[in-house]
């Protein structure tokens, strides 16, 4: 089956699931919101729907059907956990994410899926209105605005992460003033997130 966009070669649902599981564990372990992969989620949801339709056609209590059902539960879990993890980051860092989204050029991929973007906007609006009604509007005139620059919660890109090298990474420096080293394929390291964020984005490493 080919569920991904035009420029992607046809890939199997097993491969999509593998990618989704990888995206899940990376998302859980990364200190910032990673780029959205809505095509993976949509594809899996579609697969689940189809599978459930065909399960309905077989006899209740069918043995093979129960195997499919358990697999569906597993995929539901990983999808929900993945989106939950993202949603929590979106709520925490909404101001930064919306600013970034506004300054993004059309060629750059978005960190947020269309649904997440809509949610982030609603969340942002409701949070700032809440601060206004409860406190800011009762404050002196020069302190009445919600100052995003000052108050936004940023991700700590300097926090440490464990990772495995999937494709060799050349010239990585753990700190700016250190001698860069090459990270060989299949090795594992602990390092600050910032210098390897790029390699995570292009799938050269996976977080552990």
């Amino acid at each position: 089956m080919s569920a991904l966009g035009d420029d992607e070669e046809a890939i199997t649902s097993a491969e999509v699931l593998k990618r989704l599981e990888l995206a899940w564990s990376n998302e859980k372990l990364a200190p910032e919101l990673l780029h959205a992969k809505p095509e993976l989620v949509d594809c899996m949801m579609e697969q689940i729907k189809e599978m459930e339709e065909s399960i309905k056609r077989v006899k209740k209590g069918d043995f093979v059907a129960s195997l499919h059902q358990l697999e569906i539960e597993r995929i539901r879990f990983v999808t929900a956990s993945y989106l939950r993890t993202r949603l929590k980051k979106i709520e925490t860092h909404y101001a930064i994410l919306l600013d970034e989204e506004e300054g993004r050029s059309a060629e750059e991929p978005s960190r947020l899926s269309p649904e997440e973007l809509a949610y982030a906007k609603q969340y942002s609006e409701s949070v700032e209105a809440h601060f206004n009604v409860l406190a800011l509007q009762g404050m002196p005139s020069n302190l009445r605005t919600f100052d995003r620059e000052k108050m936004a919660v940023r991700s700590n890109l300097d926090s440490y992460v464990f990772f495995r090298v999937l494709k060799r990474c050349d010239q990585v420096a753990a700190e700016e003033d250190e001698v860069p080293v090459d990270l060989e394929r299949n090795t594992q390291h602990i390092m600050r997130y910032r210098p390897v964020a790029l390699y995570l984005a292009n799938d050269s490493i996976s977080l552990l």
Partner: protein
Amino acid sequence: SVMNADEVEFLAEKQLITIIPNFSENRIYMIGGEFGPFNPSLPTDVPLWLAIHLKKRQKCRIKAPEWMAVEPLTQTKHDEVASAVFTAMPSDHYMEIAMSLLNNASDDVPDADRVRTLVKDIWDTRIAKLRKSIDQMVRSQATTAELTCLTVMEINTIRPFLTKALDHMRKLRVHAEEEHIRQKRALP
């Protein structure tokens, strides 16, 4: 950023394992791959989660991986104790696979009790080693370390602690370095 032990196990449950079914069924087309056909007494490979599910319903025997036996594990343990660095484990998910089989299919694991003890010993040896290397890493104020032979489950038990410790140490270290440079500049 946290991952629970059962989530690490979830990832390990994709590992393929050999079962000997006692039922007949055509090839099954699942979302995550195709498995079977299933014929009595004919071994076939399925993901660990599926193997355990079938085992619980008494639909198969599980063939424990070759490394999961007294002799190879004794050797693994011996090597681990003798080595100053971490040795390579026979599986990246040795702990999850071992516990899963020992807890759900112990009748399919020869010498299950001894296997369990050996796996625990290997784990304990490695965790003690891990603590020692963490202490060295922090003491030497290292900014990175290679941990190639560690498994995810091992990393997971230490992750919240180690990353927090290193985050804190880094803040203190960066301040100390800045102050040192400033002081040097201030001197005539």
